[in-house]
Each structure stands twice: as structure tokens, then as C-alpha cells.
């Protein structure tokens, strides 16, 4: 009698705690692979590797990092890259989503074809775009190298030096290689953003658009006054997610330009790699990783806020 009661009790305890046991492995993995390394990075950024072990150096890593010329330069490159990458992808994604946002017999077919770039690894996309403009033999090299189209003596994307900056040190206008890197990155991110925007567009009620049309609004006014305001939360999420992926993606830089020519396409993510694994300076690299992580966290928190506000409104 007693035994069955205890067994029933232990069984019901198992039943009550089942969700806990189901979630526990996930939590343990995330603690080990995501949370612990984040704190470890903070620790690393205040230490320096010495022959006898790690030594606490305070904020010296940050001071050294800010003192490096390449740091300021890669911040500039990252800003240029992000502005170009985010705006180009967003505008093109919006236009393609507008085209797809109607009853078309082949829309499934188009979406499948358009999605192929997204499924290809960034490192391969970098190589594919590199093959197009490789000096002498790339298929676009002849076209770009035509002095009539690109005065004074044609354009060699991978080797052309950056133009003289207009404002002090800020690397604008960007080097041709940077523009090309933006194009290649957008090419790969476009399908995902298009689908995200298409999904949001389909929630805009057609009656609203039709009635505004009857009231005499033109296409541009419909986009500006109705679609963009109604899609705003998704647009903001798209901007944040593009910024996040653009700032942390490194594969494309690796295979397309390796930061070159010179340091013209050296963005922060590539600087982090070269500090950590080429110069083996883990302290400074950790300081940079921490700075990037802080920006990442701000973006993530902002995204969460926007999606939660949206949830509440629905």
C-alpha cells in the first residue's frame, strides 16, 4: 500500500517536472557554448597572454586597440559596407516583393529560382564573384576594363586603389572592391529579405490599398503612405538582421578580397580574425570582439522590443 503510494507520488513528480527535463539539455548546451564564452570573452579582453600565463592588464587592450590605425579604418569600412549592403538589399528586396505580391501562376517557380543564392555558402559566393572579375581572365574584366566606359583607363575591381577620401580619413567614396563586396553580399542576402518583406506585404489588407487608389492615390503614394507605415516593424527587423549579419559575416571577405587591395575592404569582422589568428594577439582581439558583441546585443535587444510591440498590437 505504502509502496504504491510512493511510486505514484514519484511518478507524478516526474510528470510535473517533465518540461524541466525536456528543456534541461538545451539549457546546458546554451550555457556551455553561448553564455560561458561570452563571459570568457569579457575576461580575455582585460588580460594579456604572457609566457608564464594570462596577466591582468586593465583597459590596456582597449587603449592599444583604439591606438591602431587599422581600427579606425575598419570602423569606416564597416560603416560604408553596412550602409551600402543594408540599403541596397532592402530596396531591391522591396521591389521584388512588390512584383511577387500578386496572384501569379509561376510565383512558386520564381521564388525557388530566386532563392538559390541564399542556399550557397558565403565562401563559395565570394569565389563565384571573384571568378567574374579576376584580372585578365574574368568574364566581366573585359567590360569593366574598357577605358571608354570607365575612364581614364578602365577598372580592375580587385586591384584598383581606393579614390581620395572626400572627408578627412573617412573612406568615402569606397574602393571598387568594396562596392563589389557590397554587391556580392546583397546578392546572397536578397532572397531572405525578399521573402520576409513579401510575408509582411501579404498582411497589408488589399481593401485599404484599393480604396486609396479610388481616392486617387498614385503608386508611389500607396507605397509611402500605406505600405511602408504598415510594414514598419518588419522593415525595422530586416534592417537590424541585415546589420547583424553584415557586421559579423566574414566568409565573403575571406574568399572575395581578403581585406584587400591593401586594406580597402578590411571590415571589423576581418580585423578581428587577423588580430586573433594572424597576429595572435588575443587580448586586443577579445577587446574588439567585446565591442562588436555590445553592438550585436544592442541590435538584438532593439529587435526584441520591436517584435514585442508588434505582438502586443495584434
Amino acid at each position, binding site marked *: 500500500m505504502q509502496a504504491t503510494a510512493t511510486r505514484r507520488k514519484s511518478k507524478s513528480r516526474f510528470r510535473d517536472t517533465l518540461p524541466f527535463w525536456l528543456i534541461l539539455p538545451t539549457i546546458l548546451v546554451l550555457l556551455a557554448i553561448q553564455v560561458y564564452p561570452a563571459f570568457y*570573452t569579457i575576461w580575455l579582453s582585460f588580460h594579456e597572454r604572457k609566457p608564464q600565463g594570462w596577466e591582468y592588464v586593465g583597459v590596456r587592450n582597449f587603449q592599444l586597440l583604439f591606438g591602431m590605425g587599422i581600427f579606425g579604418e575598419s570602423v569606416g569600412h564597416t560603416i560604408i559596407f553596412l550602409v551600402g549592403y543594408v540599403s541596397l538589399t532592402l530596396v531591391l528586396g522591396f521591389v521584388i516583393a512588390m*512584383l511577387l505580391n500578386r496572384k501569379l501562376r509561376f510565383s512558386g517557380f520564381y521564388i525557388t529560382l530566386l532563392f538559390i543564392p541564399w*542556399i550557397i555558402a558565403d565562401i563559395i559566393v565570394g569565389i563565384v564573384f571573384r571568378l567574374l572579375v579576376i584580372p585578365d*581572365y574574368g568574364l566581366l574584366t573585359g567590360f569593366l576594363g574598357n577605358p571608354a566606359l570607365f575612364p581614364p583607363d578602365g577598372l580592375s575591381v580587385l586591384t584598383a586603389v581606393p579614390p581620395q577620401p572626400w572627408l578627412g580619413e573617412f573612406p568615402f567614396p569606397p574602393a571598387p572592391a568594396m562596392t563589389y563586396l557590397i554587391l556580392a553580399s546583397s546578392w546572397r542576402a*536578397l532572397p531572405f529579405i525578399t521573402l520576409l518583406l513579401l510575408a509582411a506585404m501579404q498582411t497589408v489588407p488589399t481593401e485599404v490599398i484599393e480604396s486609396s487608389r479610388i481616392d486617387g492615390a498614385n503608386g508611389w503614394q500607396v507605397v509611402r503612405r500605406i505600405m511602408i507605415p504598415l510594414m514598419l516593424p518588419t522593415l525595422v527587423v530586416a534592417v537590424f538582421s541585415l546589420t547583424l549579419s553584415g557586421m559579423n559575416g566574414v566568409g565573403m571577405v575571406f*574568399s572575395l578580397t581578403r581585406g584587400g587591395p591593401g586594406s580597402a575592404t578590411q571590415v571589423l569582422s576581418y580585423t578581428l580574425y587577423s588580430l586573433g589568428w594572424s597576429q595572435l594577439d588575443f587580448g586586443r582581439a577579445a577587446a574588439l570582439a567585446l565591442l562588436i558583441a555590445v553592438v550585436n546585443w544592442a541590435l538584438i535587444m532593439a529587435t*526584441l522590443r520591436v517584435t514585442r510591440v508588434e505582438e502586443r498590437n495584434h
Partner: protein
Amino acid sequence: MKLLSRKRINTLLVNGALIAICLIALIPVATTVLISFKGEKDTIRKPPIIFPCDTPTSSFDLTACRWAIEGYLRVLAPKPTDDGLLPFTLTGNMVRVYIPNSFLYATSTALLVVLLAGMAGYAFSRYRFRGHRALMVAILAITGVPLLTNLLALYQMGITIRKAGIPFYDDRLFLIAVYVGFFLPLSVWIAKGFFDAIPRDLDEAALIDGCSPFGALLRVSMPLALPGLMAIFLLTFVNVWNEFIAGYLLIPKNELKPAMFGIYEFLGQNIINLQVIAAACILIALPIVILFIFARRSFFSAMVEGAVKG
């Protein structure tokens, strides 16, 4: 009589524009396929040619095309053998070492992610407990964290574990753990979404009929959630297959590195042999593209679940 209404013209224009966009979008892919089937002589022509089909007299002659599989042969490096099923074996590092490594990493990560995300997603979908919302939001926040900033710490952790000399420890286990940790959070959300779509009544009916909660999960919900779990498997498989930087940095031995490292190494070795690089790219990307085309519904369903959450 109006043959073409305004609406009709509009549809035609939109279709035309979309076809044009698809074609432009696929130009880089098409040119890579073309390069991979050229001989070395045709890849280093000046000025470059699109099709290797020109003759001294005409610029394009279909009968004179010089298609070659030289690039693929150099990647695969087949050597004749007497024993075995095929009359040759493939000795190229890409097929012998790197692609099997990628396959191992992608499959084992995807299986583990499906298992863990299935369990956690089920618990989040079916139970309300203290800290439910906070945990979900925490997992959602972690979903956004990119690999890059944690790599230094993970690299140091790898060194520490390696030095600890744990028996049977292998760097591959560490890499798989890292991949699981990075692709799990999104999958938990996707799994929760899929479980939310399965009516709760079915579980409850099973419970009333005397099934244990775990039995209800195993016998009722899991089979119904199978398409969703399949989608998570595919998405994770592709993500790991395409991942470069962690596989490159966290594995010290070259013979244990994945295919994306293999292609990166190829790029360094074959600066002028464009057909070899192109063939290697095609060989690595093609399985994934085919998988995507045949299972696109699965991918899109996972993405719709995941995309809404960022």
C-alpha cells in the same frame, strides 16, 4: 475589340520583369558552371570568352564546342583500381577527406539539434511553468548572437580541453558541440511553432486513454511533428555544411577540416586554374542546391516559423 486588357498587359510585364530578375540573379551561378566545363586553354583566353565554342572563322559554332571535364578530374583525381565496385577510386582530398568530414559534422549536428529542439520545443509548446516566457525570450535573444564574437573564447576553450587529455576526446566532438550550440536556439523556436500547430486535444485524448506524458510525446505528437522536425534537420544540415570560420579555426588538423576549408585551400593553390576552382565550388554546392529544390516546401516552412522571430 480589345485583345489585351490593361490587367493582362500588367501581368505580362510583371512576369517579364520577374523572369529577367531570375536570369540576372543566376548569372554568377551560370558562369561558374560554364567555367567548370572549360579546358584550361579556354579559361585563360584574352579577352575572356563565355562559351568555348568559337572557331577561327565564326565566333559561335555549336559543333566546335570544346567542353571539358578537366576541372572535375583534377578535383576528384580518379585512379584506376582492380578491386572494388567501381573500376577507379577517387583520390582527391576534396572527396576523400573534406566532403566526408562536412557530411559527418552536418549530419551529427542536425540529428542532435532535432532531438534537443524537439524536446525543448514540445515542453515550451505544451506546458506553462514559472519562467516560461523569460526562458523563451532568452533563447530568442541568443538566436541572434553570431558565432564570430564568441570564437576567441571557444578557441581557447578548445585548447584547454585538448590539453586536459580526456580519453576518447576528439576536436571533432568540440566542433559538433559548438555547431549544436549555435543552431539550436533558432530550432527551438521553429519546433515550438510546429508543435503549437498540432491540436492539444490529441495529446489529452492519449493521456485520458492511459498514455504517460512521455508516451504521448513519443507516440502522438512526434509522428505528427515529423515534417517539422525534418525541416529543422534540413535547415541545420545546410547551415553546418555552409559554415566556414568555426570549422577553419576550431579544428587544428587539416585532415579533419570541413569542405568549406577545402575550397578555401583550393583557392590558394589554384590561382590561375579557374576551371578547377569552379568545379570544386560546383561539387560542394550542387548537393545542397538539389536538396533545396526538392525539399523547398520544408525549408520555407521552417523559415516562416523562424523568420518571424528574426
